[in-house]
């Protein structure tokens, strides 16, 4: 743009008149400045046109400025050729002006740059300022909001303040009333106290008076007691004197009694002496008679001995007699036995002799010793016994043989009877057969007769034929007849041969039947019946098979439904169809699986082989581990037990410490419920309950006891909101109560 404008300017300058040059210079400079300014202000518009139009206006050519200028320039060129100095000057001026122009241009450019920078700066600043203003606006809004909220709060607070003031005034009034009431109470109490004081003073004076009276009485009583003491002393002295007199009297009585006792002793001694004298007399008399008595004594003693011996002897004899009697009886018995034995002996001897004789007889040896006889006899007897044994054996054998023979005979008899039965049967059959044969022979006769009759017939036919032949040979008319007859004959011959065949067949049949019937007719019958049965059976089977066939046909039809019908053509399909692909895939899959199975089998085998060694290690490891773990568990249990014990003991100690330090026993009955009992509690039931609420503070729960402590609760909990204060004041109260009680006691 600038270049364009500059070009136009240059062009203008080139064709300017020298006279107007300076003017032009000025105007150019002005123009340039103006254009610059214009550019500056209308940067987005088309400056070229504007400048061009302005220039054209300056040049005085409104439509085509360049051409006109050129025409203008062409004319003066011709006029100004004459003065070269001026031209030079003009050129120098021109150069200068060019320089100035370039300077100005550079300045303009510079200015432009500055302007741009400035504009950028301005823009930036403008943006930042806008941002700031927005920010400020926002902050202002926020602040306004805050202000509003604050105002609201202020209002609320004011309202609250007013409420509080009201409340406080109300409270003040109430408290004033309370204070007044309390002061009244205080004054009442003090007046009461004064009244009590007066009463107490009067009581004290009365009591002092009483004390004085009692002191006087005490002095009087003391004097009385002194007098009484003197009296008692006197009386005691008298009593002592009397006592001494009494003891003297008793001493004298004792002496008297002692003397009396001595007297009695002496009397006794005297009586004893008299008795002794009398005894001495009787003893002397007895002494004189003593020798005689002694002699008598000796005699008597001897006599006594004798009598004793006799008695002894008598007893012995009696025993002997008794013994002998017994023996006698025994002997008598033995005697009787002996007689018997002797008799027996005789008899036995007789027997013995007889036996011996017998034995000898048996042994057939007369000259045998009697001693050797029994042995021989025994051996003989043994021999005989053995013989008997063998004989019995034989007998048993024979008996068994007999039994078998009997059995055989029985069997034989049975067989015989059977055979006889059979024989009779056979005879019966024989007769039947004979009858049959008879019948058959009759039949045979009949058949042979039939045969004869057939033969006769045949002969007659033959005769007929010959007759016909004979007749036919005569006459020409008979030729036809002959022809017909010939045919007839042929026919008849055919019939005959048929008959013959029949006859032969019949004969053969007859023979067969004869043969069969003559052999075994009843068996034949049986066979027939059997065959009939079989025929029936076969018929049934046939029916069954037919049914089966029908069934099978039905089945076959069903099968035919499933069968593919080719209609004589062929079946084609693409060799790479889904079925074949599927099968191939399946095969591949199967193979893969098989391989895997093999691999796994091998693995299993390896595992099994390797198992036994590894197993043992595993087991030992595991047992070791188990033991280790068990030990660990026991250790841990021990630890926990110890910890529990420790905690228990420390807990108890702590509780005790708390109890002793703060005067309250704290029990936790349930979840976050604490029961407090004071150390100075009047009753065991005086319990305070505290519980944690949701905000983590302790609440005092209402109990019977707490309802009695309304004052303390009001003061310490509601006003001061301090549980420790409440508790300590309670402690103090309780303590003072207690001490009061103890003091009063």
């Amino acid at each position, binding site marked *: 743009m600038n270049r364009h404008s500059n070009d136009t300017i240059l062009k203008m300058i080139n064709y300017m008149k020298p006279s107007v040059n300076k003017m032009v210079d000025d105007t150019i400079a002005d123009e340039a400045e103006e254009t610059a300014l214009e550019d500056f202000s209308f940067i987005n518009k088309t400056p070229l046109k504007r400048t061009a139009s302005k220039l054209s206006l300056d040049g005085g050519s409104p439509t085509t400025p360049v051409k006109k200028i050129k025409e203008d320039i062409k004319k003066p060129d011709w006029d100004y050729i004459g003065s070269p100095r001026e031209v030079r000057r003009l050129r120098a001026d021109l150069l200068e002006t060019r320089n100035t122009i370039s300077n100005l241009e550079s300045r303009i450019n510079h200015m432009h740059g500055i302007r741009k920078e400035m504009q950028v700066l301005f823009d930036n600043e403008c943006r930042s300022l806008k941002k700031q203003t927005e920010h400020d606006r926002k902050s202002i809004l926020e602040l306004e909001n805050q202000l509003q909220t604050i105002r609201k709060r202020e209002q609320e607070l004011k309202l609250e303040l007013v409420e509080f003031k009201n409340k406080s005034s109300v409270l003040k009034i109430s408290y004033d009333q309370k204070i007044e009431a309390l002061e009244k109470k205080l004054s009442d109490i003090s007046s009461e106290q004064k009244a009590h004081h007066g009463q107490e003073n009067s009581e004290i004076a009365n009591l002092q008076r009483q004390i004085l009276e009692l002191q006087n009485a005490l002095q009087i009583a003391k004097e009385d007691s002194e007098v009484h003491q003197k009296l008692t002393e006197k009386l005691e002295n008298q009593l002592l004197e009397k006592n001494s007199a009494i003891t003297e009297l008793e001493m004298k009585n004792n002496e008297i009694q002692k003397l009396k006792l001595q007297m009695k002793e002496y009397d006794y001694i005297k009586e004893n002496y008299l008795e002794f004298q009398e005894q001495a007399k009787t003893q002397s008399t007895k002494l004189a008679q003593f020798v005689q008595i002694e002699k008598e004594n000796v005699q008597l003693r001897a006599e006594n001995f004798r009598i004793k011996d006799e008695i002894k002897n008598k007893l012995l004899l009696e025993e002997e007699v008794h013994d002998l009697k017994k023996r006698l009886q025994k002997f008598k018995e033995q005697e009787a036995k002996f007689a018997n034995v002797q008799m027996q002996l005789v008899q036995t001897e007789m027997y013995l002799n007889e036996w011996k004789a017998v034995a000898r007889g048996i042994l057939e040896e007369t000259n045998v010793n009697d001693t050797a006889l029994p042995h021989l006899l025994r051996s003989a007897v043994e021999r005989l016994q053995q013989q008997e044994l063998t004989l019995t054996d034989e007998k048993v054998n024979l008996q068994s043989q007999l039994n078998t023979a009997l059995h055989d005979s029985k069997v034989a008899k049975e067989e015989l009877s059977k055979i006889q039965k059979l024989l009779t049967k056979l005879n019966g059959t024989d007769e039947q057969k004979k009858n049959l044969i008879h019948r058959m022979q009759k039949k045979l006769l009949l058949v042979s007769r039939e045969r004869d009759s057939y033969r006769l017939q045949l002969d007659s036919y033959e005769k007929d034929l010959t007759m016909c032949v004979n007749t036919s040979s005569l006459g020409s008319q008979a030729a036809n007849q002959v022809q017909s007859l010939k045919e007839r004959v042929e026919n008849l011959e055919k019939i005959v041969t048929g008959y013959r065949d029949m006859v032969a067949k019949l004969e053969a049949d007859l023979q067969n039947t004869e043969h069969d019937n003559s052999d075994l007719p009843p068996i034949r019958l049986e066979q027939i019946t059997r065959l009939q049965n079989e025929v029936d059976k076969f018929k049934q089977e046939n029916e069954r098979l037919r049914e089966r066939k029908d069934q099978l046909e039905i089945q076959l039809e*069903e*099968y035919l*439904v*499933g*069968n*593919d*019908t*080719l*209609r*004589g*053509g*062929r*079946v*084609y*399909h*693409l*060799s*790479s*169809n*889904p*079925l*074949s*692909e*599927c*099968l191939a895939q*399946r095969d591949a899959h199967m193979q893969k699986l098989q391989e895997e199975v093999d691999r796994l089998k091998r693995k299993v085998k390896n595992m099994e082989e390797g198992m036994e060694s590894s197993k043992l290690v595993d087991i030992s490891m595991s047992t070791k581990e188990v033991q280790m773990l068990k030990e660990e568990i026991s250790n841990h249990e021990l630890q926990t037990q110890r910890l529990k014990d420790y905690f228990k003991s420390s807990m108890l100690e702590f509780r005790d410490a708390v109890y002793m330090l703060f005067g309250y026993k704290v029990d936790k009955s349930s979840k976050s419920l604490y029961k407090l009992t004071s150390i100075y509690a009047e009753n065991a039931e005086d319990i305070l309950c505290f519980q944690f609420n949701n905000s983590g503070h302790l609440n005092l729960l209402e109990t019977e006891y707490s309802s009695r402590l309304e004052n303390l609760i009001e003061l310490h909990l509601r006003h001061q909101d301090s549980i420790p204060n409440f508790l300590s004041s309670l402690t103090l109260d309780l303590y003072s109560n207690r001490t009061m009680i103890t003091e009063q006691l």
Partner: protein
Amino acid sequence: MATVLKNKSSITLRGSAEIVCDYLNYGINSILYQRGLYPPETFRNEENYELVMLMSTDQKIKEFLEKTLAQVKDWLVERIVNKIALVITNVKTLEVLERWDFNVEYEGNDTSKEQKSEKPLNIIKKEIRDVLRQITSSVSFLPLLDCLCSFDIHIYTKDDVELPNEWAESEPANIKNAQCVKMKSFSTNIHKMETVVTYKNEDF
């Protein structure tokens, strides 16, 4: 729908073959979906014959059907095909469990390639729609295929056919204890298509 309409709704032989192949394509896809041979999520809806048909999106099945049906179309034009059979086989035992026979009969006396049918297309479509409906409802009586199954398409031709590449001869698919149910048939007046399903009766 690739029906060929020429000169006042007349159907050429080739057009008829195309109609038949279209029917086969939709019918086979429908059977594959209904019988649960492939997971249902591999099928997408496609509206045709005024019915919502489910077509397989499995690339392999699509390719296979395309190849087979192209061949069938050629052979239909040549009047070689007797029957097209969709055979469902148990993969494990190779036992044929179901066979869908699409019997083809050639109608009309004209045996040249210029044979044309004047039967209106919308009537043919209606007939095809009825058959497809029947195929869809056949699930109610056909036994459940509770084993791994796959399918194959057999083309029964007359004798003496030159086998193209990738084609092989196959065995007829016989079914034991079979029961068969005939569906409705449709005709283009050139080809008559009779659909029969033969299946193994489990209760026998």
